[in-house]
């Protein structure tokens, strides 16, 4: 494909007056605009690029070749759990009987869909060790907000005013952001040198403000991929002070099949289906952030909910939608998040994943993810600085190259990886180290894939010594070389026409 030509922006390919269609010239357009208020009508035509269809197709096909996804190669983006999205998930979600549903259609006409929905709620509850789940939240951060709303409703129901949320300083940025959006005040809990929660600091905070603490938010393993071995002590301390424990499911993959947040004493949690349960990330489809609660908090879950109606005599059980009135016999909460039931297509994929693995194989997910990460850790720690020794869970954090004298940074290593056909790991996060390089292989990768990646990482460490300029100016084999990220951050240009004007 001629990248030089079709790799241009679609605006640059535009030729005035060129068309990919022809319409009758005597076409009467008045009826298409007649009902619109005058103020909303365009005074001049939209400045759209003008191209013939073949040019458009070549341009976008060219762009699609520049994409990189899990289906193209190893994608060790730490903290993101970029696991493979099995094809069977897409097949199931694409079935007409599912894809054509309307959220308001009568329950008796979509019993199968409601059954899937109900079974996923139940499966997640079992895997998490909690009582019930809502699937309504539309993404992970939306789940965090929903979980905090549930916690707030719980305290309000007890006439308690609790406004503070304890969050470890290693936490992902969405935790404090969600707390702030929920109108709660964030209090930071310090970490120890080994990256885990400083329980002495937590104890001190609880003695100072325990009566005001609504919840503590944690992920386990934490953002550094380290298991919080003091978790039982932590949950007990917070519970004693009257607060609830929130589990951020971001790192659930490490635990899948091994242990459960509910058993660690967590009261509320969210799960990112796009991480742990193999549904697509970001551009691959909408998200889903189911929220689960322990026994005693079910009445605070948002509506609507899908409930099971027990079978009568010889019949089958059936499923119904509880809109918050009294299908389930109890009065539901008045909480609602998002629209209707969340993103059902994503739930189908997650449920297909759970069923295709089955009870036996799902137990292997966590252990294999942890094994892969530790294998990489042990084999790379000769060339890359490992700030926290010992067992990691599903991801490993290095603090850049061991040999800092070459001036080659984590950014340079990440850029050089692109030349070798790998997606870069997460860099400069977590913030606890200056040169963070965070690798999460997931359980999907074969030993051959991981070995090849390790070889390339060693080769880059060698290049940093023998030819540092090569690494500092990488990437060299990609369609676009090193991007000026300072200029991009300072002068973000988001519309092409602005450039043309200037």
């Amino acid at each position, binding site marked *: 494909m001629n990248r030089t030509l079709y790799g241009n922006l679609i605006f640059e390919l535009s030729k005035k007056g060129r068309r990919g269609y022809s319409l009758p010239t005597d076409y009467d357009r008045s009826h298409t605009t007649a009902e619109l208020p005058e103020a909303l009508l365009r005074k001049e035509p939209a400045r759209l690029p003008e191209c013939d269809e073949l040019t458009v197709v070549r341009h976008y096909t060219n762009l699609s070749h520049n994409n990189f996804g899990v289906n193209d190669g190893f994608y060790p983006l730490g903290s993101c759990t970029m696991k493979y999205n099995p094809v069977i998930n897409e097949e199931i979600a694409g079935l007409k009987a599912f894809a054509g549903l309307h959220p308001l259609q009568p329950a008796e006409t979509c019993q199968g869909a409601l059954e899937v929905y109900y079974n996923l709620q139940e499966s997640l509850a079992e895997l998490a060790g909690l009582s019930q789940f809502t699937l309504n939240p539309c993404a992970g951060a939306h789940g965090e907000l929903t979980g905090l709303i549930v916690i707030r409703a719980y305290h309000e129901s007890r006439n308690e005013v609790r406004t503070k949320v304890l969050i470890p300083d290693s936490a992902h940025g969405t935790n404090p952001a969600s707390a702030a959006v929920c109108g709660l005040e964030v209090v930071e809990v310090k970490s120890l040198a080994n990256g885990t929660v400083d329980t002495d600091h937590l104890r001190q905070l609880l003695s100072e403000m325990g009566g005001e603490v609504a919840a503590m938010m944690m992920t386990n393993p934490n953002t550094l991929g380290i298991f919080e071995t003091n978790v039982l002590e932590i949950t007990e301390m917070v519970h004693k002070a009257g607060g609830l424990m929130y589990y951020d499911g971001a790192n659930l993959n490490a635990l899948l099949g091994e242990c459960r947040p509910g058993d660690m004493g967590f009261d509320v949690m969210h799960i990112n289906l796009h991480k742990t349960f193999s549904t697509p990330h970001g551009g691959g489809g909408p998200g889903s952030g189911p929220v689960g609660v322990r026994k005693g908090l079910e009445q605070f879950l948002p509506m609507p909910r899908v409930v099971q109606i027990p079978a009568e005599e010889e019949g089958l059980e059936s499923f119904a939608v509880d809109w918050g009135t009294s299908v389930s016999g109890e009065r539901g909460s008045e909480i609602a998040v998002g629209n209707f039931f969340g993103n059902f297509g994503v739930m189908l994929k997650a449920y297909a994943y759970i069923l295709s693995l089955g009870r036996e194989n799902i137990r292997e997910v966590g252990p294999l993810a942890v094994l892969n990460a530790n294998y990489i850790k042990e084999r790379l720690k000769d060339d890359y600085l490992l700030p926290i020794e010992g067992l990691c869970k599903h991801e490993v954090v290095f603090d850049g190259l061991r040999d800092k004298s070459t001036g080659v940074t984590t950014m340079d290593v990440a850029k050089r990886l692109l030349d070798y056909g790998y997606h870069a790991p997460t860099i*400069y*996060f977590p*913030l606890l180290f*200056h040169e963070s390089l965070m690798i999460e292989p997931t359980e999907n990768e074969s030993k051959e894939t991981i070995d090849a990646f390790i070889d390339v990482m060693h080769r880059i460490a060698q290049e940093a010594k023998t030819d540092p300029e090569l690494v500092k100016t990488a990437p060299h084999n990609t369609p676009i070389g090193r991007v000026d*990220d*300072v200029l991009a*951050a*300072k002068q973000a240009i988001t519309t092409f026409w602005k450039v043309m004007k200037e």
Partner: protein
Amino acid sequence: MALFEEGLLYSESHEYVRVEGEYGYIGISDYAQHALGNVVYVDMPEVDDEVTAGEEFGAVESVKAASDLIAPMSGTVVEVNEALEDKPELLNEDAFGNWIIKVQLSDPSELDALMDAKAYEAHCAE
């Protein structure tokens, strides 16, 4: 290598204050600008705003991360370094020469909690 200028007082969160009479010039240390990398934006308070020791008064954004600015001392902002609005990279070029805010200090005893250059250098080496 990071510079540690003598005569300034430093906080654990890597801000410095240059005390001149009743005023303090507050900025980020050279060590901090090194750690942050290329600074692309500085979020500053307004003149007459109050700042409190140990509390956030703005933020520095770099290509790597956004970091809160924590006031090393309390007082009233009398001037902000407007040059940083258009040229945040001045912090990378000379962190000590480009203070961020000038504060009329309200409690000089807060100086005692801060570190001198030598103690701060040791803190950074930890």
